[in-house]
């Protein structure tokens, strides 16, 4: 049984300056993560714009569960486990759509949008005490589903901290992306990119706020972009965006060090000051941006607009399954499939009320960063797979995460802060990991 891993054994695997390789390779630890982290924490499921009308649904994965996130007739959002309570067939094959209910293709048991069993064929051959209203016959529902400004999260734990408590100050990134919409609303649009890599899920999160790797892992794209004449006439569809996204990994040591890293006790983290350098900033002096900014000022006024657009947090990780970029309206969901297999799902948002061309920039960013042919993410994924390959060796047993150790400052609320060239986010993630993994049931 996974729960047989004693807390003391787990504590021996996570030290401030290093973690044990079994965290990435041991299926028993992965099983326990699925129970204690993905089986309890608040996980991002969907955005409300994907399920606006009653009957709208979208599929998601919640830990080990294949769930259908659906808006019922009463407007309430539920997450139902995609498994017929009769013989176990999936009741939904589509990734998203609109439906009056869910009918099992095997023996035609039908379920309502609330998961209730509505009908079964040939009642007379079932036992007399067979009761359609028996809750065990309804599609299993995720016990807690909550929404924060349109972002829907679910938790398999019946109790515990609320979504807002779990998110804490990292919720600011959700506020920021919504506040960037001149109409005060955002919607998922532009398609969904999906990739899988043969490596542990935690490799993705460690990498997101790792400031030392870009100069090495992304050297080929930085170099290719630098070889480009800066003044070539960029076609409208791109507007130098590919170029700047590739260049953005080309900071020198001093620039990376000038950034700040912030970690939270819940495992969240972000990089601050990234856009200050101006390389990747969406704030371009062009007609599209000026028009957008004017519309935002009309909503918020000058002072708040400056604050909203000046928010300078990059790669916001909402532990344990989602990463959000407000500046380019991107979201990336990380789904563990096995100890050595992970799915990355990415999409972008349309800022309602913004010029159409601004949405095209978000789509371009998504293609550049999250497509299988990405000139950036592909090299990260390649490295994740090489790390997983290396960790298959029984020795050495440990992975080092000591960069910047001793320079982390602890501030109010337990957040830790450091300068850019630090493995602080790794340490924050593993401190949280250990707490989740050793918490009593």
């Amino acid at each position, binding site marked *: 049984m996974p729960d047989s891993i004693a807390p003391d054994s787990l504590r021996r695997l996570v030290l401030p300056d290093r973690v044990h390789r079994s965290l990435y390779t041991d299926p028993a630890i992965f099983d326990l993560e699925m129970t204690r982290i993905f089986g309890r924490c608040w996980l991002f499921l969907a955005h409300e714009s994907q399920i606006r009308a009653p009957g709208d649904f979208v599929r998601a994965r919640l830990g080990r569960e294949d769930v259908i996130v659906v808006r019922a007739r009463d407007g309430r959002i539920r997450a139902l486990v995609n498994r017929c309570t009769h013989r176990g067939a999936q009741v939904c094959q589509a990734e998203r759509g609109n439906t009056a209910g869910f009918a099992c293709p095997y023996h035609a048991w039908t379920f309502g949008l609330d998961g209730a069993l509505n009908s079964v064929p040939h009642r007379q051959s079932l036992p007399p005490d067979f009761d359609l209203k028996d809750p065990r016959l309804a599609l299993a529902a995720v016990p807690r589903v909550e929404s924060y400004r349109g972002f829907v999260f679910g938790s398999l734990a019946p109790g515990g901290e609320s979504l807002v408590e779990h998110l804490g100050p990292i919720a600011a990134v959700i506020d920021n992306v919504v506040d960037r919409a001149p109409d005060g609303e955002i919607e998922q649009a532009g398609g969904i990119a999906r990739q899988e890599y043969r490596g542990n899920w935690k490799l993705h999160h460690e990498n997101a706020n790792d400031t030392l790797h870009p100069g090495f892992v992304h050297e080929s794209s930085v170099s290719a972009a630098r070889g480009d004449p800066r003044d070539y006439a960029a076609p409208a569809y791109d507007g130098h965006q590919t170029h700047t996204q590739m260049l953005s990994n080309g900071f020198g040591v001093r620039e990376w060090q000038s950034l700040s890293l912030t970690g939270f006790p819940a495992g969240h983290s972000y990089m601050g000051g990234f856009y200050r350098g101006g390389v990747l900033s969406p704030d371009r002096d062009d007609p599209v941006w000026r028009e957008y900014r004017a519309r935002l000022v009309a909503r918020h006024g000058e002072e708040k607009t400056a604050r909203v657009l000046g928010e300078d947090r990059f790669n916001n990780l909402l532990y344990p399954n989602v990463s959000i970029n407000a500046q380019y309206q991107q979201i990336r969901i990380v789904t563990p499939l096995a100890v050595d297999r992970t799915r990355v799902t990415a999409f972008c948002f349309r800022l309602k009320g913004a010029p159409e061309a601004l949405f095209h920039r978000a789509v371009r960013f998504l293609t550049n960063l999250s497509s299988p042919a990405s000139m950036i993410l592909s*090299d990260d994924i390649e490295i994740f797979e090489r790390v997983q390959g290396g960790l298959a060796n029984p020795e050495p047993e440990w992975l080092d995460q000591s960069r910047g150790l001793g320079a982390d400052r602890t501030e109010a609320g337990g957040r830790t802060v450091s300068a850019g060239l630090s493995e602080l986010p790794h340490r924050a993630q593993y401190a949280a990991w250990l707490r989740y993994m050793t918490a009593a049931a």
Partner: protein
Amino acid sequence: MNAAVEIDVKSEAEAFLIAEARLLDAGRFDEWLALFAEDGFYWVPAAPGQSDPLNHLSILYEDKSVLGMRVRRLGHPRVYSAQPAPRTAHLVGNVTAAPGAGPGVDCEVRSTVMMAEYRPGQAADRRLWAGQQTHKLRRTPEGWRIVLKRVDLIDCDAVHGILAVPI
């Protein structure tokens, strides 16, 4: 257009596609890039029947300048996602050619493409990419130039691993 001319254009287009495929299989990406017109685009949509590259993400949507960065990157000694270099075998078939419909397009060639890919190394991937492709071509004194190469993969909206080289 009479039948003899049609056959002529078709065999010319077929020869062009085969020559292009050989450049890709040989990893001669600079020469492949040179097949594109200065205003040429390379598009691999991410949705079946995708009509719009601006409002929907693509696997690849690049004009010649961005494609040039991609090709330069593939020539870099530390492009990890393409190391060791993938080996590919393209097969192009079911070729039909029609007169070009748009401005600056002299010929539109439709074909089916399959690219078997082997990535040596620890991943040791063997993969098959397949789909329909459309080449919009312009006749120039230097030969055909690609105005648009569009590859519609049968699994364009599926979960993928890395696609390190052009199809």
